[in-house]
């Protein structure tokens, strides 16, 4: 009998993990970078790393089902004659017709309207479906200006000048040819079937001084009625917020790197921009330094999933949050009921992110007439409204437990962090200590 040395267990590299190896092989085979939808998928410091303290002897709570806890918020009161009044501090983020199907856009409008909140157009213009079914519709003003026109600008309830988004700060839009149907092509004044790579910079302004003049123009065109938002990706939140305020914004929208996109390079999504949690305190600080906190409203988006996330964002000084990916899931995106079809596409429910390919089994990120029939705008809108209601109730539950009669009375002092990273980013103490990394010289 021969003696065999005991074998070592096969060990895979943490650096060259299975995903990395598959990506190297894919790149070598195709010669093109990976394009996908959604936001950063890597593990990041997030709201899960924060906890509320609740009430005890030093703070007393409000009765859960009896005492009022206000959820309303007014956006755009700085300059606009007609600010947006929302019943809940959760709005629907901009997603384009083109990347989403018509029924999906209609469902977003229906759900938002049922919930007393706003929805937002996207890089593709305003459709009748969403205008007709959205009581309060924010019209995005993007570098591409696809479909931008005077009539729609005037029938919008607010205007959002999009400078960037969290998934790709510094990147432009991308809609590949397979999703350019006749209707999408007409709205964008482009031939059917060609790739649409939207510009990353606005065509007629650069920098904060120009932005100020651009905002003046938009106000003059709309007779100073509509709130003007400025949306930035989570790049330099302190300076971007300060410059947006200086340029005259009524509302600043900061989108962290978990915020989704219809399509961009995987390398961009995962490696450019900052986590949502890291963006909030610098943005709030900029508003406070300018004496504009609560005068210019701050909306934060990117990875908001439940009422706890909403409450934590508000406690850190945000006026409202925006949801995109979560709203799509509420409509039916990535639903396990389509698992067999996800498998045919080489993926699985919960991981499907090839939104740019237009073959979404759930009928949401597609322009295929047969697939989009799977979205019933009324039922999907109802699901979104249900979800928004649950998020609101959850946030109220937490706020009452912290003794707050308004969600907006939540404050950083209600929070602790579970990790040093989150403590530093959120500017709240590490749980069990009074240590805020970076404060008081430590």
């Amino acid at each position, binding site marked *: 009998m021969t003696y065999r040395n005991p074998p070592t267990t096969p060990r895979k590299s943490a650096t060259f993990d299975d995903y990395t190896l598959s990506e190297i092989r894919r790149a070598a085979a195709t010669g093109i970078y990976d394009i996908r939808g959604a936001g950063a998928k890597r593990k990041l410091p997030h709201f899960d790393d924060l906890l509320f303290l609740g009430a005890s002897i030093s703070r007393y709570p409000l009765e859960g089902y009896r005492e009022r806890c206000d959820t309303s918020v007014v956006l755009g009161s700085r300059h606009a004659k007609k600010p947006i009044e929302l019943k809940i501090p959760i709005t629907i983020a901009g997603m384009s017709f083109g990347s989403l199907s018509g029924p999906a856009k209609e469902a977003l409008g229906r759900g938002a309207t049922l919930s007393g909140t706003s929805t937002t157009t996207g890089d593709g213009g305003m459709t009748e479906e969403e205008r007709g079914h959205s009581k309060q519709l924010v019209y995005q003003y993007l570098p591409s200006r696809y479909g931008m026109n*005077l009539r729609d600008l005037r029938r919008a309830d607010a205007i959002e000048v999009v400078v960037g988004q969290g998934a790709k700060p510094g990147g432009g839009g991308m809609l590949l040819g397979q999703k350019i149907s006749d209707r999408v092509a007409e709205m964008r*004044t482009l031939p059917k079937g060609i790739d649409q790579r939207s510009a990353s910079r606005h065509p007629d302004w650069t920098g904060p001084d120009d932005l100020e003049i651009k905002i*003046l*123009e938009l106000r*003059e065109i709309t007779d100073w009625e509509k709130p003007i938002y400025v949306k930035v990706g989570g790049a330099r939140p302190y300076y971007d917020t300060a410059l947006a305020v200086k340029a005259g914004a009524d509302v600043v929208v900061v989108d962290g790197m978990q915020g989704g996109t219809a399509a961009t390079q995987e390398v961009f999504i995962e490696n450019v921009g900052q986590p949502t949690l890291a963006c909030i305190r610098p943005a709030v600080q900029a508003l406070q330094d300018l004496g504009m906190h609560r005068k210019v409203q701050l909306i934060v988006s990117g990875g908001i999933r439940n009422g706890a996330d909403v409450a934590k964002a508000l406690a850190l000084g945000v006026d409202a949050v925006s949801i995109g990916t979560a709203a799509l899931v509420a409509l039916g995106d990535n639903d396990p009921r389509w698992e067999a079809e996800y498998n045919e596409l080489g993926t699985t429910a919960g991981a499907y992110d090839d939104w740019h390919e237009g073959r979404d089994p759930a009928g949401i990120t597609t322009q295929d007439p047969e697939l989009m029939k799977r979205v019933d705008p009324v039922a999907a809108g109802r699901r979104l409204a249900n979800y928004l209601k649950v998020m609101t109730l959850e946030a109220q539950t937490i706020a009452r437990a912290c003794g707050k009669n308004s969600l907006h009375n939540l404050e950083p002092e209600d929070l602790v962090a579970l990790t040093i990273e989150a403590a530093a980013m959120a500017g709240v103490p590490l749980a069990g200590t009074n240590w805020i990394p970076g404060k008081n010289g430590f």
Partner: protein
Amino acid sequence: MPATTLSKTAAHDPRVFDLDQLSLRELNQALHNLAPGSNETAWEVLNPKGSHSVAVGVDQPVAIDVRGSVGYYCGGMNSGSTITVHGSAGPGVGENMMSGSITIKGDASQYAGATGKGGLLVIEGNASSRCGISMKGIDIVVHGNIGHMSAFMAQSGNLVVLGDAGDALGDSIYEARLFVRGKVDSLGADCIAKEMRTEHLELLQGLLDRAGVTGVKPSEFKRYGSARTLYNFNIDNADAY
């Protein structure tokens, strides 16, 4: 608004707005208040002195004469009005114009006619860089020269240049047509010289007529447009980006 500062006599006399005495807000609001069929069809703006956003978002077929030079975005999103600037225009004149016409008697700065969807923009002097950037159906006629990166990502419409064009003309162009009479410093990615066929000569003659250009023949121009090689991504074209 103080009545004494408005001259309003007969319907055929222009309604005069002196920006030394009235604000930009009052001017634009008065223009937006115009009802369809209003007989206040002639307007005159005095002392613009480089003001931004003069006569933006006008959606009635009125004539507006601006006596002097304007700042950014004059005539922005114009829908049907006829604006004449008796001076020069700052950046973004006629940006996103829907219809109507704008004539600049002097020169225009950057991004003239940016993203314009329709209508006619005539610049009797020169236009700076990025003229017609991302144009989407507008027609632009420049009597003089245009600067670099003009017609960048131009989607549709026509850009006519009686003089010369700067570097990278028509970079990443889609279906817009470019007609240049003088020299072109260089063409941008995917922009090529194209054959001038009868249909183009006729189209160009029509544009010259609409812009009031005389003594210039369409045959003196060269046509440029998209090679359409970048319409769908191909890794072997990556060097072009």
